[in-house]
């Protein structure tokens, strides 16, 4: 073979190999099929009531129908604008509801009630449920989502897969599994062995709370506005212990394990890069942050956010935040004993559970 031809063939081959990966690149550059900016959450900002608000807007078209149903005590059915089937209920006592859905049945339609709604046990609701008044669910039910304009009560062993919002109080009996977002504009009460992920209400109670625990008084003279106050910072490179009944004014940062003895008072925020253990009756003005696991003993009071990066146990009698200073309690796994009160948000990323007090 002519040597020039061989060189030319080689150059051609190498050029081809070089251009080959650029073919899809040129195609994409020309077509711009994936050239829009990455979608950034600009508006709803993770608001827990986002889905509830959207659903309320979605079913607004049913308002005249619901008013008619309430006035006449009748039931109506039809299609929503997007083709989803609905059932509008005017007067929803037990007997009427039971006539619509037999126990053990699957309800495939969106339910909208103009007044109180009582649903039978052992029923699976595949679509969202709206109650213009109080909502009371039977035992062992399964819900996709519920919006209640007054109180919402779930029977024992009920399940929620997406969200619930109650304008009034939300309560769940034992063994309920509450996936997704549960919110109330008033109060959330969960009985023992309930599982949860994200809860938000002015007041959240687990199990039976002793009288006085849910009082509206501020539990100390302290202010939870941890980020706004300039206080001294104590930085420790290893493990550290705050002794029982000790009073510390300032922020504490321990790069190891942190123990806070019973009755200690911290006028500031506390951070441990590793585990953190609070004894009984500890009060913390600011936030509690742990890079690993956190154990909060009984009868503690924490004003600021509580964050544990791995797991969190909250003992009975502990109060997190206050009416004046609602807060966030968050960890991938949370165990809250019966008798805990959280004012604000209780958020377990993977698994939250109400457990019996030790």
């Amino acid at each position, binding site marked *: 073979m002519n040597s020039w031809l061989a060189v030319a063939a080689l150059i051609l081959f190498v050029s081809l190999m070089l251009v080959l990966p650029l073919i899809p*690149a040129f195609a994409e550059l020309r077509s711009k099929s994936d050239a829009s*900016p990455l979608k950034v959450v600009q508006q709803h*900002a993770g608001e827990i009531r986002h889905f509830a608000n959207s659903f309320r807007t979605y079913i607004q078209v049913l308002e005249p129908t619901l008013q008619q149903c309430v006035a006449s005590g009748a039931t109506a059915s039809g299609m929503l604008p997007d083709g989803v089937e609905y059932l509008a209920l005017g007067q929803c006592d037990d007997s009427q509801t039971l006539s619509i859905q037999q126990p053990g049945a699957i309800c495939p339609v969106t339910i909208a009630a103009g007044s109180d709604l009582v649903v039978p046990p052992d029923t699976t609701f595949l679509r969202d449920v709206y109650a213009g008044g109080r909502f009371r669910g039977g035992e062992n039910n399964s819900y996709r989502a519920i919006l209640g304009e007054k109180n919402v009560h779930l029977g024992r062993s009920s399940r929620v897969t997406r969200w619930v919002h109650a304008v009034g109080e939300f309560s769940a009996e034992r063994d309920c599994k509450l996936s997704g977002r549960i919110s109330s504009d008033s109060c959330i009460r969960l009985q023992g062995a309930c599982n949860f992920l994200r809860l938000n209400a002015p007041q959240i109670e687990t199990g039976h709370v002793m009288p006085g625990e849910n009082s509206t008084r501020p539990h100390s003279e302290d202010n939870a506005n941890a980020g706004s106050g*300039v206080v001294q910072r104590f930085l420790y490179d290893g493990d550290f212990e705050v002794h029982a009944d000790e009073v510390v004014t300032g922020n504490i940062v321990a790069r190891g394990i942190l123990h806070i003895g019973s009755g200690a008072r911290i006028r500031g925020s506390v*951070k441990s890069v590793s585990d953190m253990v609070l004894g009984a009756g500890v009060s913390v003005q600011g936030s509690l*942050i742990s890079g690993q696991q956190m154990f909060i003993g009984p009868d503690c009071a924490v004003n600021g956010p509580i964050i544990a990066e791995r797991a969190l146990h909250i003992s009975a009698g502990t109060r997190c935040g206050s009416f004046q200073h609602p807060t966030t309690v968050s960890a991938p796994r949370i165990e809250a004993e019966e008798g805990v009160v959280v004012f604000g948000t209780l958020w377990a*990323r993977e698994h939250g559970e109400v457990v019996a007090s030790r």
Partner: protein
Amino acid sequence: MIYVLYFIVFLICVYTARHYWFTLNRLFAFQRHPYIDIDTASWPLVTVLVAAHNEEKVISNILGALMTVRYPEGQMLVIPVNDRSTDGTRAIIDDFVERFPGRIQPFHRAAGKGGKAAALKDAMELATTEVILIFDADYIPGAGLVKQLVAPFFDPEVGGVMGRVVPLNVGTNLLTRLLDLERTGGYQVDQQARMNLRLVPQHGGTVAGVRLSALREIGGWNDQSLTEDTDLTYRLLLHGWKTVYQNRSECYEEVPETWAVRIRQIMRWAKGHNQAMVTYGLRLLLGKHRATLRERIDGALLLGVYAMAPVTLLGWALALAVFFRGVAPLHGVIAMFSLTAYAALGNLAAFFEIAAAARLDGTRKRICLLPFLILGFAVSIFSVSRAALSQIFDLVTGAELHWDKTERFRKVL
């Protein structure tokens, strides 16, 4: 000569391993987002500084966006830092002040030293809150962003916070698409992996926050620095404060649309970064301070990223010299492999990182553009090397460092 080459190859291998480590961590390990769940709290007073130097094309967008963010009423004060603007920036700011009384306090700076750090330093006289957020004028914050950026300050160890930058003008041309890929890799993988591994997430100086008491402790803004954000990261670190990265606190920005602007931007970044390397490198590695061993190592590697460009160029030159002089590599096949794979081709692990980042973002087709990154890489390596050389020249001649403002491309509203 061969030993210098081996050292360069070693350095490139270290950075390669680092890229793979970060990428694999991001793909398979536990992801840290500790503060993102804080949605209810007694939100502290916050000051939002908006750095603006001749920003008439974009300033109204950010001020308008900041007026709609969800933050308790009366708890947030916006201070547009109008740094010697000669265009319509001042008039636009004053118009907003009139429309939103009590919510915006303008800081009009008519004279003084140039540069963002100098302007921020002067504006600090007005900032009295413990939490301060900083945005560049071309950014467009979403409704929940301010709360997200404030939330980490409930952690008393946190001195600085950094959110994710997302290019808005992606589809304009090849350059904007390449910059979008670079940003994706840099934030989605690199910054988040450093957050996961408790290393040194970098303060970016925009979509960012700083704790006032920490800033005062470290001596305030350094107006000698070309990249006040890098400078801040290292001074916070040396004083025992953490900078944290919030990958889900995303904010749109405008990326350069012309190569000339891009080259000027990256040259400024390179000079500022190298400046920080010289100032803090040895002290970080060997000094007595509160940084952990892993922070010292990662911090040093981060400081060296821009220095690697001229080092890689030198490696290529040495590799060619070694080849043509017929010097036999000392350690057989492995050495040959290192020379050809890394000294000749450069470090491709960064491309893997970007591809992984695009996958994590759920975008697919834009990965097709990956081969074009060679072009961006080539421009960067020569620009950054040129910056390093000019910096050495400036050092010898005693010339003062010059701050270049990045040109905007948005249409005036």
